[in-house]
């Protein structure tokens, strides 16, 4: 065994470039696998979240179709406010408005203004909260403003700290559990991480008409309140304010679910294809070792090695190659997304070009013809 280990290292030393190249190739294979698997797993999580949401709430979505053409007149404002207040007063109304990102410490930060039923609906958990965080979140009074900060804020802030947002102090009443995300049905079906985001209650005291529209657009209503929605619709029609389209959320969710399943299948297939090719390429590396060094192994056998020795050496070298690759790909990021994969693929092609150029540069036809050896 010791002898074979020594042989193996010697072999790697003398064929260092080959070893490096093969290791890079298997590293790339691992990266591709991990990248695609992670991506497809992410999509599965996202799909599960939406499926959960569908199960928990049967919601109607309020769509505003002609928001740009609404004139900012006093009368319109009054009517918009009326519509908004009517919607808000419906029991179980859920608002998730993320149209107002903010800058915190010069960093772009996604802000979700939500009603307090948001947390249950999306299964979002709060860590390190103040005792009565839910009450404070609910309290609509002026005075102190509150927020829940994404997990990444834990590095710089503690519960109770104040954060300045556009000149106003918001107090942190808790943090959003690490890894939380939301997939808003009214928002392109995309899953968004909450790790770097903040969540605030809705402070809608003195806001402009366009803000009212953005809130109305962010509203979902339990479908059992269809009657109340009808009132809103009627009021809107009578006063000719907005082109309101009230969609059953179930229909919308169906669309979302279809998209999710398509994406799951799509990424799943791509992941499988890449796993297949990566595993094949690793297998080929090993088979290639046997062909590349077949003659060398035969000579060893002629000089007293057993076939077992050769097997052990190939397995040793291959497992060294694969463990280095695995290590490298873990360092380079199991969470490698598409961008990393693309970059890696380009690097890969670059490597092939470079290695070929290098090998041909030092390739001597004379020597190769001479050495039948």
């Amino acid at each position: 065994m010791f002898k074979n280990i020594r042989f193996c290292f010697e072999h790697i030393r003398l064929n260092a470039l080959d070893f490096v190249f093969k290791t890079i190739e298997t590293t790339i294979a691992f990266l591709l696998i991990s990248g695609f698997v992670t991506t497809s797993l992410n999509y599965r999580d996202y799909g599960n979240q939406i499926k959960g949401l569908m199960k928990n709430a049967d919601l109607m979505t309020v769509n505003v179709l002609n928001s740009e053409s609404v004139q900012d007149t006093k009368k319109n404002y009054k009517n918009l406010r009326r519509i908004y207040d009517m919607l808000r007063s419906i029991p179980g109304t859920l608002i998730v408005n993320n149209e107002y990102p903010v800058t915190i410490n010069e960093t772009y930060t996604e802000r979700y203004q939500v009603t307090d039923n948001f947390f249950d609906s999306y299964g979002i958990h709060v860590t390190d909260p103040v005792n009565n965080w839910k009450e404070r979140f609910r309290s609509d009074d002026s005075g102190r403003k509150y927020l829940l900060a994404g997990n990444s804020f834990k590095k710089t802030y503690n519960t109770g700290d104040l954060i300045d947002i556009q000149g106003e102090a918001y107090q942190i009443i808790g943090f959003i559990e690490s890894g939380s995300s939301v997939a808003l049905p009214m928002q392109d079906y995309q899953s968004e991480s909450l790790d770097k985001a903040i969540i605030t209650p809705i402070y809608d005291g003195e806001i402009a008409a366009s803000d009212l529209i953005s809130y109305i657009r962010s509203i979902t209503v339990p479908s059992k309140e269809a009657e109340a929605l009808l009132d809103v619709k009627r009021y809107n029609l009578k006063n000719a304010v907005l082109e309101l389209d009230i969609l059953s959320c179930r229909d919308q969710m169906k669309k979302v679910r279809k998209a999710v399943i398509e994406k799951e299948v799509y990424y799943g297939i791509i992941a499988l294809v890449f796993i297949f090719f990566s595993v094949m390429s690793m297998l080929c590396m090993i088979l290639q070792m046997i062909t590349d060094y077949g003659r060398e192994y035969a000579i060893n056998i002629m000089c007293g090695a057993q076939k077992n020795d050769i097997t052990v050496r190939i397995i040793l070298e291959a497992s060294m190659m694969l463990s280095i690759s695995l290590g490298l790909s873990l360092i380079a990021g199991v969470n490698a997304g598409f961008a990393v994969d693309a970059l890696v693929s380009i690097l890969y092609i670059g490597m092939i070009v470079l290695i070929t150029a290098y090998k041909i540069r030092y390739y001597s036809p004379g020597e190769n013809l001479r050495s039948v050896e």
Partner: protein
Amino acid sequence: MITLKNIHKTYGKGNNRLEALKGVDLTINTGEMLAIMGASGSGKTTLLNIIGTIDRPTSGEYYIDSVRMDELSVKEMAVFRNRVFGFVMQDYSLISHYSAIKNIMLPLHYIKLSRAEKKLRVMRLIEAMKLENRKDALPSQMSGGQKQRVAIARALVNDANILLCDEPTGALDSVTAMEIMSILKKLNSEGRTVVIVTHDQSIAKKCDRIVEIKDGIIFNKAN
């Protein structure tokens, strides 16, 4: 003494079945220098590989003295290849990324000896084969004669008693070929059994005895 009795070797199966040796009977005396002649494809390499335990016969009996060779375990066969047989091939069979000295040392990896003893053996052989100033050269940097001398040194490094040479001069010019032959002749005169496969009449004539192989069958030939 090497004794082969009714040795058969079959390659492949079904339609691809090919009987390379069709009942070889051959006795090679200890210390003899034997030439095996035959056309290309007649089974010379196959026979030599069986004698050298690189391959096993399909059927038949093979003895060295009283040891039944074709029934040895893989481990025992490896020991024989390492200590008893020395191989010299037409294509030199050197490892391309090993220097001359490393190639010579290869069989030493499979035997337990002190470092000093190993070094002594290698140095002695490098000197005997006149490779002093080529010992760090790679095979691709050596002439055919030099490469074959490296191969012979490697065959001798564990003091092999039986040298199996498969067309050892096949790739060499006639002057170099004679040089290699005189080395082999000298090794034979020191008591080693030398078996040379060749299709070159002038090489065969340097041996004590010639046998001919034709389509996998041995014919004895008067010398």
